[in-house]
């Protein structure tokens, strides 16, 4: 295999990693507060579809990203009210959000399906983009990739080092103690759910606007679920999610490259690779290592003040 193969492959990895990473970061925030959000697939679908409607009508990709983020957050408001305040079953409510997302986008997105829309250009950073290898891989991505990097760092900083991050983690580990210490448990959880909505919406909008410049029904294609797996793989740590997203994206982006060089692998079995890889990274560490359970202790549990110990 030529070096051009590897260069082309590596240069596309960030584009595949960004949506997985954004969604996973949102889910990490949410799960660190103790709420399982299985609705990622639906939230991403709404983000992707609404962004394309905006980009189609206004030709402004930036506005499209913003509207995609806001629309998914609006859907997350419904999820948040249900699971946090009405204390509904988090698994079933998450699945209902997936259904709502699929339903809303299927019904409302018909007019813009398969229509090309404006997206982002790859940046040219002058001499930086000219550097062999590094220039193409690091300094020639679209602007959202650099925004993503900032978002990872800010998310890591906010969760692991700030007072709000500490309260968020406390709510997810031991809500009764957090409550006694004066933290508004339900409010923190609700905001965390909204964050996951915003991040998943941005991830979906990235897929349709930055990656594909088109929306088709079902285009999220399980990436929301892969992001949920990525959270487990990353053991609820933002920086590990970055590493995981690059690993997952590496496999994902290998498929079109192998197709481009005409590799003799059945195409649909190759398309199963991202899902098989995700299963493998969930199963293999569980089989090989007996590791401590690091999931937030109150994950998936309702908090009621009468349960305080």
């Amino acid at each position, binding site marked *: 295999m030529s070096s051009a193969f590897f260069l082309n492959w590596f240069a596309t990895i960030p584009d595949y990693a960004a949506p997985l990473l954004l969604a996973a970061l949102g889910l990490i925030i949410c799960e660190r507060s103790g709420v399982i959000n299985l609705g990622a697939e639906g939230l991403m679908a709404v983000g992707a579809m609404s962004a394309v409607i905006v980009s189609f009508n206004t030709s402004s990709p930036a506005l499209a990203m913003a509207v995609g983020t806001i629309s998914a957050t609006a859907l997350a408001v419904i999820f948040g009210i249900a699971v946090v305040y009405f204390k509904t079953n988090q698994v079933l409510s998450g699945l209902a959000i997936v*259904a709502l997302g699929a339903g809303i986008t299927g019904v409302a997105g018909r007019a813009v399906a398969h229509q090309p829309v404006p997206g982002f250009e790859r940046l040219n950073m002058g001499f930086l983009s000219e550097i062999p290898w590094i220039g193409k891989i690091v300094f020639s991505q679209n602007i959202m990739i650099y925004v993503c990097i900032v978002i990872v760092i800010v998310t890591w900083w906010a969760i692991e080092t700030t007072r709000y991050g500490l309260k968020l983690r406390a709510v997810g580990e031991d809500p009764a103690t957090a409550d006694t210490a004066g933290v508004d448990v339900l409010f923190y959880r609700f905001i965390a759910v909204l964050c996951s909505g915003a991040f998943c919406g941005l991830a979906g909008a990235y897929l349709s606007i930055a990656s594909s410049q088109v929306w088709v029904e079902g285009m999220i294609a399980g990436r929301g679920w892969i992001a949920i797996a990525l959270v487990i793989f990353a053991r609820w740590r933002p920086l590990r999610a970055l590493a995981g997203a690059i690993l997952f994206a590496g496999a994902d982006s290998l498929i079109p490259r192998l197709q481009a060089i005409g590799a003799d692998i059945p195409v649909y079995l190759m398309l199963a690779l991202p899902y098989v890889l995700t299963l493998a990274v969930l199963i293999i560490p569980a089989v090989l290592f007996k590791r401590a359970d690091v999931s937030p202790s109150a994950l998936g549990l309702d908090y009621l003040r009468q349960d305080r110990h």
Partner: protein
Amino acid sequence: MLDMSTGITLVRRQSISGRLRALSFVGGLGTGFFITFLVLVSSGVEPASILNEFVVQVFFDLHGLAQATTTAIPLILAGLGAAAAMKLRFWNIGIEGQVWAGAIAATGVAFYDIGPESIRLYVMLLAAILAGAAWIAIPVFFKLRYGVNEIIMTLLMAYVIFQLVQHLLFGPWQDPSASFPVSPHFDDAERLSRIGWGAVHNGLWVALGFGALMWVLLERSKFGYCATAVGHNPLAAKGTGLPVITTIVISVLLSGGLAGLAGGVITSGAEYRLTQFLAHGYTFSGIVIAFLARFRPALVVVVAFLVGGVYVAGDTLKVFYGLSEAIVILIEGIILLSLLVWEFFSRYHIEFVKQRVPA
């Protein structure tokens, strides 16, 4: 917030009366229907024709009734499958994957003419059950042995097997005379015969038979007692010496097997071949049916029939109003969420207090 600062205190009810359960169910269903009504009207459906499309044309019309029944056959099986796993709090979110496994197995038996023609159909349905069970056996093993999350595993495996279906339909199993990715039509001996009412086929008796079997198993047998105990509290069940692992394994394999059978029944009773979209939507429909039926097999049959009616009405809306078929999953999502939210009012006693109770 709702707990305290607004002057509202929630107290979890120790026991919930049947009346309260019924009230919250009716409230949830009513709210769900109302929101569905608003969504349909805002999508351009005439308010007056909604009742007509969803009730009159489906349930008070012999033709519509036959369509709803035909649609309900695999839904009953998927619903029973979902109920068998959910009752034990094993989240089988990969029903579609097991439906695919069953559809592939049944089609494979037909495609390669396995077994004598006189029993071919039985071989197909048995293969479908075994394939569905085998497909879920993998997540069950890794869940119980290594604690890997079954939600993600069952779900991702549905994506994997869908790619396998694509591979077969665009490759070895493609009907050379068709321009679409479909397998060749089954022979007559490989089809469930029609009962003479619309497109309703003998799969109806298969589905009802398994409904009865599951009713006996879950509500009239020692196994059902174990399953209920494990679903409520696995640790306590284990403490009293019940075979927790065995109960989970059997229930979940049944879950996969029933979903696989749904795939077998769709291919041999309705499609007569393997097609690209036949399992679409079964995961969520199965879960909604099982949840609405409170995991009770007899109610699953009834609810599956009603959901079948929604499918038929959805098809009509698609044809006459140009709505996407996604309207069906949207309606299901609205009703599920609405029911979940309304459970709040039965699960908690709400006390309004004048003053903040000191923390």
